[in-house]
């Protein structure tokens, strides 16, 4: 905060400070029947997912489609997918903040909220996958009677530390950014909302001393969050890369995963922002320029992901390793060819459309592309995990995995869980940052006026 770039990107009909507060405050409260209908729909899907999880707990992991040697399936695929989704939020809020990128101000709050809810969703899957989720606390190094400590050489423990840290830091970052906005809303609200915002604003009054400490704290949190973004998906990639499974044991995994994570995250930000902008009538703040910038980010990360696909195949061929070659041949032309080609078309070819300015500025086209990118990124994880495991070294140990209805129900429930939190957030807290949007609008001057 405090030092974002000058207001080059603001439209000609620049809103005033009062307009910003009024317009953002108008998005809160008075939910429509459509909102309640949508909320009821996602809660129904969530309940189906919870029902499937309870059934799995009752019957055991056998109700999932695990078939040796494929003992990581939809759950780990979905875990990696949601962790990936979580990445663009901090990228947009922290990294673009450090680069003083003014266009982020209108879109970063949505991206940050998405990050927190995506990590909350991702964190459920390792627990669901290991079956006895009530023993999840065994991952924490706590003193116990048998004198056992966790194995710090295990990627599972690395994940616990990385994702736990990411969740805490991104939640702190979201809340810290919200405080001045909640105070602005507090001063406009009435009734129970006034009480809610008075408590959650933490006595914020925007004094010079509060801003003095706040701006520093925000800056340092952004500086800490930036390497964290890069580290978390690198750590997740090492879940695979430290093993010897053909298709996993590659040094490019960390940058490949980080680029893929940002790619999928930006796609979901676009998917969320398009309806949000229409429903909340935010066209004045979230402009076509914002979508063009997001699609440039999508294009850049899409190109990196596409390049990583090519490099993976090149390394399999160039290494001369029979198993690597067989594994990658199997990906493209084996039992799961459809998953691989879905991934390649959605992630490798589709972003090329974004080279055209007309497409980058066409909102319906961007919505369609972002949905396909998300589909492709889920399949990317499915291909890396399931297809690699199903075709390892020994032909007699190869197997075919097909997800069951329980896994599909839990997967659907995870989307419902995410959207439930997002819907609740969007109607109760500002999805566009009041403070930062105001920051890029010059304060009125006596001499100019």
């Amino acid at each position, binding site marked *: 905060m405090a*030092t974002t770039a000058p207001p080059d990107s603001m439209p000609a009909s620049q809103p005033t400070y009062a307009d910003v*507060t009024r317009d953002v405050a108008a998005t809160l409260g008075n939910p429509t029947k459509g909102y309640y209908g949508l909320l009821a729909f996602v809660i129904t899907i969530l309940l189906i997912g919870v029902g499937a999880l309870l059934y799995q707990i009752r019957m055991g992991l056998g109700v999932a489609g695990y078939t040796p040697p494929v003992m990581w399936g939809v759950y780990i695929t979905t875990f990696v997918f949601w962790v990936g989704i979580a990445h663009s939020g901090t990228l947009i809020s922290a990294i673009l903040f450090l680069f003083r990128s003014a266009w982020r101000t209108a879109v970063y709050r949505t991206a940050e909220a998405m990050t927190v809810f995506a990590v909350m969703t991702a964190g459920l899957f390792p627990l669901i996958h290991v079956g006895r989720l009530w023993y999840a606390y065994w991952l924490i*190094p706590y003193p116990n009677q048998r004198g*056992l400590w966790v194995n710090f050489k295990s990627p599972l423990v690395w994940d616990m530390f990385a994702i736990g840290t990411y969740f805490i830091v991104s939640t702190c970052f979201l809340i810290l950014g919200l405080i001045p906005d909640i105070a*602005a809303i507090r001063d406009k609200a009435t009734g129970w909302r006034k009480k809610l915002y008075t408590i959650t604003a933490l006595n914020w*009054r925007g004094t*010079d001393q509060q801003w003095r400490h706040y701006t*520093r704290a925000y800056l340092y949190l952004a500086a*800490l969050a930036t390497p964290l973004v890069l580290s978390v998906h690198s750590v997740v990639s090492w879940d695979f890369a430290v093993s010897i499974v053909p298709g996993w044991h590659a040094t490019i995994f960390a940058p490949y995963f980080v680029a893929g994570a940002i790619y999928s995250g930006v796609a979901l930000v676009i998917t969320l922002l398009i309806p949000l902008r229409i429903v909340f009538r935010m066209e004045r703040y979230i402009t076509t320029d914002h979508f063009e910038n997001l699609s440039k980010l999508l294009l850049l990360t899409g190109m990196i992901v596409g390049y990583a696909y090519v490099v993976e195949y090149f390394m399999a061929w160039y290494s001369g390793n029979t198993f690597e070659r067989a594994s990658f041949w199997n990906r493209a032309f084996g039992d799961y060819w459809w998953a691989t080609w879905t991934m390649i078309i959605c992630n490798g070819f589709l972003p090329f459309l974004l080279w055209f300015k007309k497409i980058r500025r066409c909102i319906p086209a961007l919505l369609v592309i972002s949905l396909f990118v998300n589909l492709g990124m889920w399949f990317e994880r499915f291909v890396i995990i399931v297809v690699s495991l199903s075709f390892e070294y020994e032909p007699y140990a190869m197997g075919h995995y097909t997800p069951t209805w329980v896994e599909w129900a839990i997967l659907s429930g995870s989307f419902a869980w995410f959207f439930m939190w997002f819907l609740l957030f969007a109607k109760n807290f500002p999805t566009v940052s009041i403070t930062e949007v105001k920051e890029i609008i010059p304060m009125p*001057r006596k001499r100019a006026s």
Partner: protein
Amino acid sequence: MKASPGGILAAYRHIDSATEAIGALKKSGYDDFTVYSPTPNEELLEAVAHRVSPVRLWTLFGGLTGLVTGFAMTMWMSYDYAIVVGGKPIGSVIPYIIIMFELTILFGALSTLVGLAFHAWRTNQRGPFDGRFSDDHIGIFVPCPVERRPAVEQLLTAAGATEVKVEIG
């Protein structure tokens, strides 16, 4: 909760009026005043001329504590429950770097927030508040005894305040 001190509260619509008023207050020897603004503003912060916030030291020491904790925890626990895993040394520093890194970030971030809360509390500026200051106005509150209020009122009005009122403490 302590009551607000008495003084003069002025509201400004224009940034240059507010900075002018801050300059005039400083010239007249007033240092103990509060400036409210809806956003952090470079010009206002320069006019007020605070020293850099000490929150950064909390970040530094929090981060270093996390780093040391990460190293000490992984090494001590590994040797306390010494079992060879995957043929690796009992205390394998390279994989432990991940834990050390994550704890550096975690402790650094949390101590930044603690530092923010601590310093915001320590430098808490009591005084009246107006809802316009979180919307589109800049506010300046000058705590002063009754006999000095007319002079302060005149000074704040001359700088271009849209409203000046006396606050009785």
